[in-house]
């Protein structure tokens, strides 16, 4: 079976900035594939290229068997898109929005009625189809967009940060819908996220940082590759604690999210030794099994929140620079 998406040596430059720096990957048909990385890592740029919304600087990408540059229209017919920002007409009803989409995508008229019902029932909006979209909550709007993305039965569905800006409860329910549609529709899903917990829903994940893929595998395999538990301690004197950890235990620790963080095998058994032999007072300690966060950290040297904070810092610096002018 041909892969649903295949990308090779893909790059994208915006002036001096290299947003995507040579990535290769394949997504099998029927797979749910996640792009995980901090904001600004190149996720959105990649998704834009795959959706034919931006041309790559070099390299090739094929979606549903078609080249994204040479066969742009064929690609567009075969994909469904749900963007980060809403793209609904608030003045129209849910059904009118979907009808608009059906006409633009040339969905056969006879198929529209049953298909409309199918996708709206899937996202639980069939009863609300005649209400104006402006009366929908944020979660309902996102669900309507997912229904719309599916309306023309695309072979690949792109979800760019499908749950960003939603409250935790709504995020969970959106994922229930996505998981359900995986079972019901014969579809490949490509999504981007910077939420670690959401990436766990994917069959496979690519971790992307600074425009490069640093790891690509199933969530389980990625976590198993770390093997170690993560220990975080808060101490009276962090630099002294880091020095002591290196001297006494030969551990390479760093400060992440304000806590001294390091990885060891069998974390629970290590903690008593830690208290016994560390010369610095420990105020609290936590041990956790490897999560995708640790995977991210082991490949990029930082947690995803650190990465975003540094982007935030950079933006703040830029903002202050402009403010001073």
């Amino acid at each position, binding site marked *: 079976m041909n892969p649903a998406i295949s990308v090779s040596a893909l790059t994208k430059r915006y002036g001096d900035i290299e947003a995507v720096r040579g990535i290769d990957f394949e997504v099998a048909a029927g797979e749910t594939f996640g792009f995980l990385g901090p904001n600004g890592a190149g996720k959105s740029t990649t998704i834009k290229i795959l959706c034919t919304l931006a041309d790559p600087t070099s390299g090739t990408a094929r979606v549903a068997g078609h080249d994204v540059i040479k066969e742009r229209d064929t690609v567009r017919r075969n994909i469904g898109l749900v963007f980060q920002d809403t*793209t*609904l*007409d608030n003045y129209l009803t849910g059904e009118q929005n979907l009808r608009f989409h059906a006409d633009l995508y040339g969905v056969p008229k006879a198929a529209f009625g049953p*298909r409309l019902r199918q996708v709206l029932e899937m996202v639980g909006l069939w009863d609300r189809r005649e209400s104006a979209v402006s009366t929908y909550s944020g979660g309902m709007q996102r669900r309507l967009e997912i229904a719309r993305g599916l309306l023309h*039965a695309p072979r690949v569905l792109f979800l760019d940060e499908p749950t960003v800006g939603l409250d935790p409860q709504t995020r969970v329910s959106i994922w229930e819908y996505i998981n359900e549609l995986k079972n019901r529709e014969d579809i490949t899903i490509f999504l981007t996220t910077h939420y670690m917990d959401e990436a766990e829903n994917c069959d496979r994940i690519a971790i992307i940082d600074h425009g490069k893929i640093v790891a690509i595998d199933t969530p389980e395999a990625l976590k198993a590759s770390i093997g170690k538990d993560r220990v975080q301690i808060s101490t009276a004197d962090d630099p002294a604690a880091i020095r002591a950890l290196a001297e006494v235990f030969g551990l390479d620790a760093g400060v992440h999210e304000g806590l001294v963080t390091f990885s060891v095998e069998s974390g629970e058994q290590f903690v008593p030794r830690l208290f016994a032999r560390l010369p610095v007072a420990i105020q609290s300690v936590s041990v956790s099994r490897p999560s995708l966060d640790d995977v991210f950290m082991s490949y990029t040297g930082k947690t995803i929140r650190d990465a975003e904070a540094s982007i935030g810092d950079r933006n703040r610096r830029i903002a202050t620079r402009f403010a001073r002018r």
Partner: protein
Amino acid sequence: MATKDMSAEGALETEERNLTELIRVAVPERSIRADLRAVSIVWRRELIRFRSDRLRAITSLVQPVLFLFILGTGLSRLAARGMPPGVDFQTFIYPGVLAMSVLFTAIFSAASIVWDREFGFLREMLVAPVRRWAIVIGKCLGGATVATIQGIIFLALAGVAHVPYDPVLLLTLVGELLLLSFTLTAFGVMMAARIKQIQAFMALTQMFVLPLFFLSGALYPLSGLPSWLTVLTRIDPLTYIVDPMRHAVFDHLAVSPRALDALSPGVTWNGWVVPLGLSLAMVAAMGLAMLGVAIAEFRKTE
């Protein structure tokens, strides 16, 4: 939980049937028919939105009504001395004010593109597997239709300005309104392709609208003007639609040839009277040219 499972099971059968049936939903190859269907839905969306926005229909009638009844009545006594017997000042300005009634609506319906961009809906249209021209033409036709409907509402007031309800006259005027609305919407869409902020769009189009109206000869005859004003009126595209409209109205009034000469002298270029057909053709050509620019602009984006 139990109910959910049950309903899922019950739905499974139909689901499977639908699935196999719907896999063949596969969107057809690009064709002119698909593009025309896109034109049609973009056009219909404008109508749906117009229908749900009755306030707009009413508020945009306020300005022409003010011009016709307040300004028209107020100035009519003053203007009476210059008017040939048997012709009202209101009747004289009616065709110009009628043109004005579509002026705002047509240009501002193009503003919806700027809104669509701001609210993201434009993206939904631009990523669809249809040609860009289909979307731009749908938008222009939609704006033209909405503006013409607006004009037709104002046309209902013709009797108050002593303009007869003659079917031929009404049809002629509706046709001319449609042409005018299309050209104006094309102008608006062309501007909207470039201008990304709604405030800037409003400010810029406002800047155009009033000079267009005042220079068009909507409120005064085009003969015997100072030469600088003569030149400016001849440059104003609106002149070339107001003149045929006024011509149509005066054709259906019982007025002396002398009065006709004084009030509806036609557009002249250095003494040569521009034929009505040429006037209309120029407006149409301008509309098509701006439509072309608008399509080219939208092809470039994303």
